[in-house]
């Protein structure tokens, strides 16, 4: 009854409403702080070890972080959608072992690469189908396939670590370098970029976030939530397939013993990066930082020659500390910002 709309009023109102956010508003404060903390950790290691900042070590770091990062980016989608994938380590073992066997059997490298990707995606599809269409919680499904997939890999290899002929293209993938960085590192960069675009720029990403927040609401919006959920798990399977190929290529052998406990490292990286385990919030940049942080800690502690007995203790403590600082510092960031505005 008092809606006396002047001409153009709605227009200015709408312009005000859609005003793009400033860089600071858009930035995820927690991720920013996390980046700062990671830099601080790096600075500490750089001061304590001469080798840490050498190009050789940085290149090493990039290679070492690659498999974790690749799977963690995909896992970011899985966790953001409120699911989880515990089978990634087993898929890596499976793909690396079977690829090596196929190479031994005389398959061409390119075929084996394709087979590796298909196997990864295939296992992901199995996980996804049981989760999305049979309605079994992803935790259970992937816990079961974790055991099944590694079991099959063990069965086929009988415990042998299957060597990969270093003259094959497959093996060279492990040692190929470009601008001083390994192929693994470049692939990881590519996948992070793809992950960023997919989560923040594609409908799929919107639905993944939405499903994590309120699956039923997304379903009622007419989205095929089952397909989206299946896709997330397929992506993590595919990523594990890629990681399996890279691990095998780098080691020059495929083994069913690879990547045990890998899932926990990956999930740690994702959650450390600020993605909520209950779904609905996820960031690929955070995952990148989380994966780098975990790898840097392992690398740095070795470089400064810490006893292997102390390594897990220090790693755990640092993780806890980092998250703690991070949580506190959303407040700190606002306080700083307010100071900045005032001055």
């Amino acid at each position, binding site marked *: *009854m*008092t*809606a006396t*709309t002047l001409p153009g009023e*709605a*227009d200015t*109102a*709408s*312009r*005000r*409403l*859609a*005003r*793009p*956010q400033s860089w600071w*508003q858009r930035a995820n404060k927690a991720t920013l702080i996390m980046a700062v903390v990671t830099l601080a950790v790096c600075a500490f290691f750089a001061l304590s070890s001469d080798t840490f900042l050498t190009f050789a070590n940085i290149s090493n770091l990039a290679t070492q972080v690659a498999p974790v990062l690749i799977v963690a980016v995909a896992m970011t989608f899985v966790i953001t959608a409120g699911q989880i994938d515990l089978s990634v380590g087993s898929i890596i073992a499976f793909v690396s072992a079977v690829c090596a066997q196929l190479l031994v059997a005389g398959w061409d490298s390119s075929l084996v690469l394709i087979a590796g990707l298909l196997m990864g995606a295939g296992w992901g599809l199995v996980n996804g189908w049981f989760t999305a269409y049979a309605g079994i919680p992803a935790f259970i499904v992937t816990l079961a396939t974790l055991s099944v997939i590694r079991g099959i890999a063990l069965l086929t290899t009988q415990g042998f670590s299957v060597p990969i002929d270093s003259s094959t293209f497959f093996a060279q993938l492990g040692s190929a370098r470009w601008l001083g960085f390994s192929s693994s590192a470049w692939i990881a960069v590519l996948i992070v970029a793809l992950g960023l*675009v997919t989560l923040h*720029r*594609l*409908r799929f990403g*919107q639905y993944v*976030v*939405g499903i*994590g*927040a*309120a699956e*039923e*609401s*997304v*379903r*009622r*919006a*007419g*989205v*095929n939530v089952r397909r989206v959920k299946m896709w997330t798990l397929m992506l993590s399977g595919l990523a594990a397939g890629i990681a399996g190929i890279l691990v095998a290529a780098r080691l020059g052998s495929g083994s069913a013993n690879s990547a045990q406990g890998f899932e926990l490292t990956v999930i740690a990286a994702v959650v450390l990066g600020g993605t909520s385990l209950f779904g*609905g*919030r996820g960031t690929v940049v955070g995952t990148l930082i989380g994966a780098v942080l975990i790898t840097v800690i392992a690398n740095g502690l070795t470089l400064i020659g810490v006893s292997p007995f102390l390594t897990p203790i220090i790693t755990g403590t640092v993780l806890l500390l980092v998250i703690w600082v991070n949580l506190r510092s959303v407040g700190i960031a606002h306080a700083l910002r307010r100071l900045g505005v005032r001055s």
Partner: protein
Amino acid sequence: MTDETGDLLVELRGITKSYGPVQSLRGVDLTLRRGEVLGLVGDNGAGKSTLMKVLAGAVQHDGGEIRVHGRPVSFASPADAQGEKIGIVYQDLALCDTLDVASNLFLGREPHRGPFVDKRKMHEQAAQILADLHVKVSSTHQEIGTLSGGQRQTVAIARAVSFAPDVLILDEPTAALAVAEVESVLRLITDVASRGVGVILITHRLQDLFRVCDRITVMYEGESVDDVPIGELDIEKLVALITRSEPQQGVA
């Protein structure tokens, strides 16, 4: 405003639905014509929301028939109902708390350029829609979870309306709205109905029904018990129909 001879948009016959031992719907009939505003009333727990969820495909019914545009349909999912151009504002709103206002508004049909969501366009269009509806939010970038109850509800209404549906279902759309916003929504209802949309309005604000409805369907304990043109009713009679008692003198 309405077109009494208009063709039948929706026809529900003998819809039943049980949740385990609880029988929420025991056989409901309902019809909706083009350009008509139908008021659906009933006591708390009468089954109104359940019926509307069935019509919107969010819930599958056990028995009975749904006809849209005269054709029998069966909705396996909300997407099917949307395909028949049925739009709905759920009583619980069905929003995603961690997505921003614009994303919620366009969930499921984001404007896109090639494979990419066109975020700028999405926010601009969202702002336009919200400004048109006089929705009071500060930015289309705000997360839905941080809005006030009334703000959330207006976003949900904006969402349903912007689908340009043939059938618009509003399940207590004004429950959390302030006076001016209620007026906007009532105006909106007559607006869309005059463009030929069939509207089903569920509300407990009986006086609103008399301002926009053409006909009232009354539900009681999971059954549709009355179907009366608004002209034959006054507020006491309506209350009596809802509570299944004789009309009394004292009026609320």
